[in-house]
Every structure is written in C-alpha cells, then in structure tokens.
C-alpha cells in the first residue's frame, strides 16, 4: 500500500473537498483527512490538496483571502521543500495568489460561468502528475468556473513553455486562457495547479475515469 497521506484543506466556501476526499479515501484507499484552514500545520500529510469551491466567497479576488490563511504558511514551506501540492480550480487560484505558481486566473473572456466536460491535451507526460497518460493524449475532464482564464506576462509564458511546465491545455478553449493553458506545474515540478476537476472524473459510476490516473499517479509516486 502506498505511504501517501493526503490532506485536503477546507476553507469556508470550499465545495469540492468531499469529492476529493471520496476519491482518495474510498476509491484509492489512501489515508486521507481534512485540514481546517485555521490549523497551523499540515501534520504528517505528504500530499496536499487545495480543493475547488469559492473560498471566502471569492471576496476581493478569487483565492486572495485564502492565500493569507493560517495553514498556507505551512503549505508554502512544505511546498518549498519539495512537498506535493495540487490546487484544483479555486485551489489553482489560491496557488497563483500565494505566488507558488506564476500568473493569475482572470474572469472568463465571455463573462460566463462555464460548467461542462472539456477535452484536454496532456502536453507533458513526464511529471509525477501526468506519467500515467500518453504523450499528447486527449482526455475529458469537467470544468466549472467563472474565473479560469489563465494569464501571465509574455516572458513568463515563454518560460512555462521552455521548461515544460504546461501539463494540460484545452483542445477547445472555454475561457480565453493564454496559450490554451488548463494546468501548469511549478519549475521544481512538485506543485500542480489546474482549472479542470480530475476528482469529478474518477468514479466509473459517473461514466468517466480520465481524472483518476492523475490522482492515482501522485499517490503511487509516494513510496
């Protein structure tokens, strides 16, 4: 059995925390627990999930208030030491606001909340997050966001491309994100931020398990 110990951070307004918990605990049979945002540390957890939702009601900017929450201090030092952190949707926004990932998520260019399954291309399968996918494999993962329009400066974009940090891109861009970016990793390759929800595509009963390989791959990377 994997030595993975998953911690799912819960902010006021998180709403995909239980979905993520279910996948790790009940589908992948991994030691999983919730971490309340007021906690000062992440305990013995070795995989941290920042789940989707609307932390602090998206007040001021999505992810902004959560990025100053108590537990983020410990997550930041954990991440800087190479710890695995995955931010999904609102979690991606939090990671960008914290500065653990470059760029920012802007309002969707069509001003609409988009909630549907989209086709993604796995741009780089040489990462702990994507090694279970094929090169340039197309997968279907649901998105549900109003602010998923990834943006960064041109020089940052060139760096993301050059360092193979873009892991997922949209085949049919639903939000206007630069370079069709759907998910990126940091330069040290231990932090993933993505707008699509792999935890919503992980149970065969829901008809799609394209997201499971990502989460399973991360769990199995912990020996």
């Amino acid at each position, binding site marked *: 059995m994997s030595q993975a110990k998953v911690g799912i951070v819960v902010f006021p307004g998180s709403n995909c925390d239980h979905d993520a918990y279910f996948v790790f605990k009940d589908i992948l049979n991994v030691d999983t627990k919730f971490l309340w945002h007021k906690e000062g540390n992440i305990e013995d957890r070795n995989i941290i999930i920042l789940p989707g939702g609307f932390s602090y009601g998206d007040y*001021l900017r999505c992810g*902004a208030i959560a990025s100053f929450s108590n537990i983020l201090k410990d997550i930041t030092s954990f991440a800087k030491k190479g710890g695995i952190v995955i931010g999904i949707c609102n979690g991606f926004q939090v990671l960008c*606001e914290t500065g653990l990932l470059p760029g920012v998520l*802007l309002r969707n260019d069509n*001003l609409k909340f988009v909630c549907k399954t989209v086709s993604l291309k796995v741009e780089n399968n040489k990462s702990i997050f994507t090694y279970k996918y094929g090169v340039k494999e197309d997968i279907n993962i649901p998105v549900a966001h109003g602010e998923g329009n990834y943006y*960064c400066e041109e020089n940052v974009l060139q760096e993301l491309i050059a360092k193979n940090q873009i892991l997922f891109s949209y085949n049919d861009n639903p939000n206007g994100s630069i370079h069709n970016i759907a998910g990126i990793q940091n330069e040290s390759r231990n932090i993933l931020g993505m707008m699509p929800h792999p935890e919503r595509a992980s149970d065969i009963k829901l008809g799609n398990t394209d997201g499971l390989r990502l989460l399973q791959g991360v769990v199995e990377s912990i020996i």
Partner: protein
Amino acid sequence: MYKVKVTVTLRKTILDPQGKTVEHSLHSLGYTGISGTRIGKYIEFFIEADSEEKVKLTADEACKKLLSNPVMEDYTFIIEKV
C-alpha cells in the same frame, strides 16, 4: 485620522470584457463619444496615524500585499484628512 480611497483596475494591457460590454451598451444608448471603459473596484478605509506620509506607506503596502494583484491590476489611492 485619515481616509484612504483606493481604486483598483485591470492593467491597461489586459482586456476587460466587462468594460467592453458596458461600453457597447453606452454606445447603444447614444453615448457614441465614450471610449476606453474599464471596470474596477473601489475600496475605502480609515487609518489612525501621526502623518500623511505614514498613511501613504501603509496604504501602499496594503495595496501591494492584498488589495491588488500586481500581475493583473493597477491601483491608485487618495488620502483625505478627516
């Protein structure tokens, strides 16, 4: 006591679809001379401090750290003695 009025707007280089939509609406109302519509945020707060200089430093820091995100936004503020 000082009052600080902060305005945060999307940076000039970033497309503002909301502003654009509002501008279209203004044009359809007949205000055809209007251009460059941008939508932003207005934030105000009070600070107790000895001098305007200190207020300026605190407000600037608050804008940089939390009230705006420099990747996508610009901010300006004005200070009033109250």
